[in-house]
């Protein structure tokens, strides 16, 4: 098997560069996926320029990060899924070590310990966003599908360890997203619906117990999250302003760089978590639907790649990466439109601040690798 793979790579190397599509194939790139991603990024830069008050320095900064992220994607696309799978446990354990290091000697920024400085500064929780679904898929690769109860318990532990470590930083948003990426894997692996709904039902009494243990002021904060109008100066401010921005955009928007909510600085976090509101204000429902359609295309392509994949690991991993991306999109857009409480999740590939951009693109690199390194197995 390895031999034939090598032969195929050699064949690629020797084949003449006939066309653009030939080059794309040689680099293990998936054309439709790359196209969708590039369109989202381009659209994002366009909106960001306006959201950041027509600040070109910031725009260049973001473009450079995008470039780095695209390079990361290309590099990851060259790694065959078998190779990734072999290294998965090491990546997972290494990630855990880094998370523990962060908790003990990490840098503190904005009240939380998230950064580690070993030559370069980075957040180990970012690496965990890929390592956790990889580890879960790795565990299920050699095992029976749908998973048995005992295996589910092991997986629950594998997911819980990094989740708790990241929650302790504290970074509740990221830890929940990472837990979600692992849970998606087991749901895709065919965990029974009885179990899914049973566990879901257990959350309700759990939440009630938690509520009873909370202090009054903590309860008040939770209530404010669900009803921002009671606290127009504090937690509710962002969401009131962002609803005004989106609503006043109407069908076609106020036009690029003409959003008054954004440009008169009423909208906080307008170039980071709340950039979706700027889009809604300046491009209207039309622009918003365009972006959502692009996201849908990318997610759909990801799921297609997952279905086409040839082994358990690749399938589960590709599915999880695509659906986690959907979770990001949904959580951000739902929070900005006031459907769910405000949690700090950026709009993927569009919000400024690219710490997560590299991870996202590396994830898409894995999707491309899975698609272009398909093995011929009997169907």
């Amino acid at each position, binding site marked *: 098997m390895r031999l034939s793979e090598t032969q195929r790579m050699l064949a690629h190397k020797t084949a003449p560069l006939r066309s653009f599509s030939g080059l794309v194939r040689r680099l293990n790139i998936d054309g439709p996926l790359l196209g969708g991603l590039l369109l989202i990024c381009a659209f994002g830069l366009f909106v960001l320029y306006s959201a950041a008050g027509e600040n070109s320095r910031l725009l260049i900064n973001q473009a450079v990060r995008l470039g780095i992220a695209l390079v990361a994607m290309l590099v990851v696309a060259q790694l065959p899924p078998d190779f990734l799978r072999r290294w998965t446990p090491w990546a997972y354990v290494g990630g855990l070590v880094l998370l523990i290091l962060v908790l003990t000697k990490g840098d503190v920024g904005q009240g939380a310990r998230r950064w580690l400085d070993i030559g370069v500064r980075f957040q180990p929780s970012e690496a965990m966003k890929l390592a956790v679904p990889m580890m879960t898929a790795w565990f299920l690769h*050699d*095992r*029976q*599908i*749908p998973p048995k109860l005992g295996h589910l318990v092991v997986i629950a532990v594998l997911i819980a360890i990094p989740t708790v470590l990241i929650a302790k930083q504290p970074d509740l948003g990221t830890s929940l997203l990472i837990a979600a990426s692992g849970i*998606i894997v087991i*749901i*895709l*692996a*065919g965990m029974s619906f009885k179990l899914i709904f049973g566990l879901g039902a257990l959350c309700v009494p759990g939440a009630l117990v938690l509520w009873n243990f909370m202090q009054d*002021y903590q309860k*008040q904060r939770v209530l404010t999250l669900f009803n921002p*109008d009671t*606290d*127009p*100066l*504090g937690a509710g*401010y962002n969401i009131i302003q962002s*609803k*005004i*921005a*989106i*609503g*006043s*955009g*109407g*069908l076609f928007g106020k036009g690029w760089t003409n959003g*008054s*909510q954004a440009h*008169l*600085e*009423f909208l*906080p976090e307008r170039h980071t978590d709340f950039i979706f509101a700027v889009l*809604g204000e300046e491009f*209207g*429902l039309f622009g*918003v*639907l365009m972006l*959502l359609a692009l*996201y*849908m295309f990318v*997610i*759909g392509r990801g*799921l297609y790649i*997952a*279905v086409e994949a040839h082994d*358990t690991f690749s*399938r589960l991993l590709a*599915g999880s990466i695509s*659906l986690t991306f*959907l979770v990001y*999109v*949904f959580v951000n*857009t*739902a929070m900005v*439109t*006031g*459907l769910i409480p405000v949690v700090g999740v950026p709009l993927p590939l569009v919000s400024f601040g690219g710490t997560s951009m590299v991870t996202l693109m590396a994830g898409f690199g894995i999707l491309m690798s899975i698609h272009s390194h398909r093995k011929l*197995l009997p*169907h």
Partner: protein
Amino acid sequence: MNLLAPIKDHHSERRLFIGRAILASVVSIILLGLVIARLVQLQVFDHELFAKKSQGNRVRIEAVPPIRGLVFDRKGRVIAENLPAYQLELIPEQVEDLDDTLSRLAAINLINTDDIPRFKALSQSGQQFKPITLKFRLTDEEIAHFAIQRPRFAGVDFQPRLVRHYPHGPLFAHAAGYVGALNTNDVQRLDPARYAGTSHTGKTGVENSFEDKLHGDAGFRHLITNARGRQVPANTSELLESLPTDERPAPGANLHLTLDMDVQRVAFNALEGRRGAVVALDPTTGEILALVSTPSFDPNLFAVGMSTSQYGELRDSPDRPLFNRAVLGTYPPGSTIKPMLSLAALETGATNLTRKTVCIGYFQLQGDEHRYRDWKPEGHGSVDLHDAIAQSCDVYFYEISGDLGIDNMHEYLTRFGLGRQTGIDVLGERPGLVPSREWKRNNFRDRDNKRWYHGETVIASIGQGFMLATPLQLASAAGTLAMRGARYRPHLVAAIEDPLSGQRELIEPEWLGDVAITNEFYWDNVLEAMHDVMQGPRGTARAVGFGAPYQMAGKSGTAQVISIAQDEEYDEDELEERLRDHALFISFAPFEDPRIAVAVIVENGSSGSGVAAPIAKAVMDQYLGYGDDATQ
């Protein structure tokens, strides 16, 4: 791999996966459908409403901080008020280059270079659209100077605000406390909705412990601003109709303290130039009439803001002006505990009213060479309990200490409120310490140190050794003596007043129980001895009580700062000032119908009767209406 494991069926696995993938797609479409439905609702159906809200002129919600409650003394004289002043503010998100702006402000002397890191941290931690205050009170000159340069400082402006003001400066600094600028801790601790727009919070004293009452609730108003963020008149716009109505701030409650400014001032002046504390209270209610700790400081420095170096000077001064000695300072109580121990000894039968001791100036335990000295080297001769209190004979108490025992001492002194918090209504009060066998067992590691020694009982009988008490505890104990055992919780706040309705919630005196002494006759004798301390022929403080227009009772004390070696001569003049004994005095008056109890401590004052007692007398004179008006 386990050979018995079922072989993977790739086809059924793939079918299962496709099923789940389809399900996932459906869920994805539903979720995004929800978002799209919401967008349609906002952008199509409610578009007009939101368009109105964001049209032409913009609405800005601004917090309106409440007016902090005033603080009065017991006769309605102002202790803390609010004065209008202009302050310099910076809105982080409107500043382009924070470092540059701050260093240029420092260059024109509006802020201090030392404070730049603090302002940077503040402006990066909070919400970016909320102003932070750079300077709390601008002089007219500074306002004029800055007004010319304002265009050079985007995001920096001056605003009229109310600033806390303490008209009597250092007089009430420790009793009433002070407010200071919110720090990052406060910001995390306090309710952001209530404190929106608030810049200060109570840090010490009643300003701190009654913060919740004094502060009030923030309101908010909607400002119509033009494209540059400047306010325009609101009545020209129909926009306001679509907005929720403004909410007025609810002002904080006024506090009426039990303190009497005249008594406070007399105590403060009497302590001038010394390190010490005075606590005076009404023994029938526990109302604190004066609470002074010196040296003091100007609390306005905290309200207005001072430079880091100014604060460092206050904090690091060897005289510790910021330290509230009255409530936080713990001192060996010395002979001031003798009346309480006498009652304990009578009640437990360790002594009786006729027992006599010949005092030869020192006391020795059997089989021990160590001499426990009396303060009077030549001795007091033959003394009974009454003389032992009036003349403060140490040897008498050394003698009965063995019969009384440390655990009885602990029991009765604790009943008088020593060794535990009095429950005063300011935070951080120290409990002091009354030792016992159990305490020693629990608080020492070494086996030898865990044991209680008889010699330790001997020195405990004159309030030395491990024993520690705060001036507040001593004043409360003096009041309990005056009341023949009835204890009341000392407190500073008499009433909380709603500033709008003027209604007052009165704080009722809280009876804490009685120190149970069964025989009234014991009280008569011990209190009579305390009376003789001040007005008897051989009392230690007779020079102070002589010729007074009312009857009073008291007890002096000195607390050793260093121990004097055996046979070494004690020469006060040669002793460095800071190594001299602390002078203590407790007293109450009038003797027949007590209305005031006082405790005084003068650090390194040497003599309780000579230095501390006159201060106590001046305080009682003032309160009982015999004050020298010139001191006011």
